[in-house]
């Protein structure tokens, strides 16, 4: 590909350069076709999604292993990972990228071995529902639902930021702000009409697309610069690229955050609950970790190195992927690249929207004794989906930071607020409702307080304090109050009964 027909320029913008697509019309056509496909899938599942609340919230709890692997992969990837892994390498060096990538893997595997099977065996619609059964407490369910809704909404912001960056790349005349709102409307549309069925099948397709497109530039980079040459060229432009320029405490905080966060991130729990069996829930995460390691090691190392070699002065580290596409790909591939980015963003955004609407539309009305029939509940879920998406889009117009740091910020809150009650409570018999509520409140408030008052000397280090505070609150709160009663222990026992490949009927409304 010659410089002429690439016709893509790295235009100066603010403090650096931002890449633009070669032939906007062709790339836009690819992206529009992709959007129509996703909306079409949403429409296809309208009837099935609205057949029952179990279908709307967890696709009936019947998703098979093959579909779940790619759907889970897509949900894990997110705009944060797609931009974040390579963006971390571009911004802070390969060492920071390696820590970030491996910590996410650690979190996934902890989720697999600690909570996936027990949670699926509970046979509920939502994670707050699971916590209610575990602790036999409506108060636990309300607090958890509010935290899940808050974290889901906050996590939407970096996803919509990534969507805005993508539209800005494909349609520079439309710009970032309009891009955020266009993406928001598409996401909310297919989630609100198709529920978890649409989310699962779009995630499956998106997972496959992301897997291939993430590594698509790698052969071009190796062909042009050589495997070692791309890294050497990157180091020549930035001597810190081969290691890291980030402070050690920042990396420790990053690692702790991502090792613990998946246990508390709302959209992962919702996907576990949609699995056909507890074994499918576990095994899908295992295969996701394998695919994730391979795909994002290749992408994180070579694509970010290629970007640093091509252009060391990008306006934002999150532009690294587009800088490489702009250099090596024609408009059709650039369109596919943009579609893959949308796929990564959409697959997490839709799962977040489902988790948000499930928390507010299912858990809170049920706990408050408001009796909604299935039709009213799914329509309430649709309204919450639109409200949450539009308000998050409004905040995303002025994103506070780069995407990797934004998702880490929210993940830190999830780790602080939900990890002790979710993960430790799943395995520690003595934990009770008082301890769980104390842990959720103490962890979240400590994390929020440390952030608000800027107490820690280094970013991302807040979890090093707030997670131990949450764990201490769980232990002290549980020991200071009565032992769990027989009903709590009966549910606890049920979650740990090993019944291989046994489908579990959802019983959220028990």
């Amino acid at each position, binding site marked *: 590909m010659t410089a002429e027909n690439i016709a893509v320029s790295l235009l100066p913008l603010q403090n650096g350069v931002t890449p633009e697509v070669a032939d906007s019309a062709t790339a836009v056509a690819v992206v529009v076709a992709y959007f129509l496909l996703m909306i079409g899938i949403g429409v296809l599942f309208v009837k099935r999604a609205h057949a029952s609340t179990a279908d709307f919230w967890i696709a009936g709890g019947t998703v098979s292993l093959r579909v779940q692997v790619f759907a889970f992969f897509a949900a894990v990837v997110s705009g944060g990972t797609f931009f974040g892994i390579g963006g971390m390498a571009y911004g802070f060096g390969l*060492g920071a990228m390696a820590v970030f990538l491996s910590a996410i*893997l*650690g979190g996934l595997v902890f989720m697999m071995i600690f909570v996936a099977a027990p949670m699926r065996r509970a046979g509920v619609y939502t994670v707050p529902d699971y916590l209610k059964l575990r602790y036999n407490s409506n108060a636990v369910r309300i607090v958890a639902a509010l935290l899940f809704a808050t974290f889901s909404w906050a996590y939407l912001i970096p996803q919509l930021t990534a969507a805005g960056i993508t539209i800005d790349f494909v349609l520079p005349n439309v710009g970032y702000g309009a891009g955020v709102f266009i993406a928001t409307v598409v996401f909310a549309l297919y989630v609100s009409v198709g529920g978890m069925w649409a989310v699962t099948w779009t995630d499956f397709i998106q997972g496959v697309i992301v897997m291939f497109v993430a590594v698509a530039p790698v052969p071009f980079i190796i062909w042009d610069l050589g495997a070692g040459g791309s890294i050497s060229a990157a180091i020549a432009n930035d001597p810190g690229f081969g*290691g890291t320029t980030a402070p050690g405490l920042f*990396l420790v905080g990053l690692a702790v955050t991502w090792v613990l966060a998946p246990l508390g991130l709302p959209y992962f729990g919702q996907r576990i609950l949609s699995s056909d069996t507890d074994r499918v829930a576990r095994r899908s995460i295992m295969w996701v970790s*394998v695919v994730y390691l391979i795909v994002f090691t290749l992408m994180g190392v070579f694509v970010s190195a290629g970007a640093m070699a091509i252009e060391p002065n990008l306006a934002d580290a999150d532009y690294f992927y587009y800088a490489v596409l702009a250099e090596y790909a024609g408009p059709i591939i650039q369109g596919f690249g943009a579609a893959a980015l949308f796929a990564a963003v959409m697959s997490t955004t839709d799962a977040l929207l489902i988790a948000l609407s499930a928390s507010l539309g299912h858990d809170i009305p049920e706990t408050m004794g408001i009796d909604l029939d299935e039709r009213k509940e799914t329509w309430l879920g649709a309204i919450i989906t639109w409200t949450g998406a539009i308000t998050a889009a409004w905040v995303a117009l002025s994103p506070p930071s780069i995407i990797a740091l934004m998702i880490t910020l929210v993940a830190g809150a999830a780790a602080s607020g939900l990890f002790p009650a979710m993960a430790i409570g799943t395995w520690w018999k003595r934990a009770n409702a008082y301890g769980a509520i104390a842990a959720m409140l103490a962890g979240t408030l400590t994390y929020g307080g440390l952030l608000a008052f800027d107490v820690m000397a280094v970013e991302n280090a807040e979890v090093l304090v707030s997670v131990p505070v949450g764990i201490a609150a769980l232990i002290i709160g549980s020991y200071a109050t009565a032992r769990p009663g027989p009903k709590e222990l009966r549910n606890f026992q049920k979650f740990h009964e090993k019944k291989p490949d046994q489908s579990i009927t959802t019983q959220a409304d028990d």
Partner: protein
Amino acid sequence: MVGVTAAIVLSGIVLIGYPLYIHEAGDGVTLLTYTGLLWGAIITASAMVHEYYVTKNEDRETTGKNA
């Protein structure tokens, strides 16, 4: 479960902690990059080992009950 958790945590402390502790500087690919990725490989391998043993035990229990 305890073994896998210990493997992940201890390998993390060694493979991330040690390179950060020695705080190397340089203009090549540094130790943290290699050990960081090695940690990811260990985590993934641990997940596969865990799933293998859990599945084996579950199947054995099922076969035992059916016999």
